[in-house]
């Protein structure tokens, strides 16, 4: 994180924090798991934000080399939401971002349609990219969501 000091800042900041220690930023987390078609959300307006990193995962036209028409996703919904929230909170300690929104679709998702959309807003791109990539890795390890079925053409 680059820290820009305002020109008028004094050596004893008003907030009471030592000059070089900044309290962790509260990250705004929003998680949606449902069977709706994913539409990218409007990003939050916040003049501190300089970077928006997004990932959309779409269903590919083949699974293990076999052409498919759709995949079926299933979630253990309350646990999936709680695990994602915990992962994001932990990751935001290392990569201080301002807002994260995750939408994961479940049910039948056809080829070309989005199964997941993640948006990360931060002051600078480095922390947005880092959190986004790390979250996708953790999601694929520990979030109870499954591709349960393949619907063939």
């Amino acid at each position: 994180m680059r820290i820009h000091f305002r020109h008028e800042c004094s050596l004893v900041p008003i907030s009471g924090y030592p000059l070089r220690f900044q309290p962790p930023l509260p990250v705004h987390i929003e998680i949606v798991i449902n069977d709706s078609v994913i539409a990218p959300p409007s990003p939050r307006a916040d003049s501190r934000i300089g970077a928006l990193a997004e990932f959309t995962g779409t269903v590919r036209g083949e699974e293990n080399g076999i052409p498919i028409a759709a995949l079926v996703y299933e979630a253990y919904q309350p646990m999936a939401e709680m695990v994602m929230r915990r992962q994001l909170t932990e990751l935001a300690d290392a990569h201080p971002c301002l807002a994260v929104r995750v939408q994961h679709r479940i049910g039948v998702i056809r080829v070309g349609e989005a199964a997941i959309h993640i948006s990360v807003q931060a002051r600078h791109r480095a922390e947005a990219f880092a959190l986004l990539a790390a979250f996708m890795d953790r999601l694929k390890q520990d979030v109870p969501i499954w591709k349960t079925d393949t619907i063939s053409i």
Partner: protein
Amino acid sequence: MILLYFAHARRATGCSLEEIPLTSPLTVSLLWDLLVQRHPELAALRNVSRLARGDDFLPNDAVLAPADEIAVIPPVSGG
């Protein structure tokens, strides 16, 4: 104890929820033994799956109470 089965575990057991009457606490390992006894098709999933309570994955020596709700979590594949 309430057992929740998801994805491949639901297929293996043929149900998404079952109640198993228990009178005393038991470890995760012992619960797996019991589950595989009831549903032999779970045997193949045991080594790759995890049990969870709430939003916590449980280590093999965790102790479960008879009133717990436990989820059987096969390897995940979201995203």
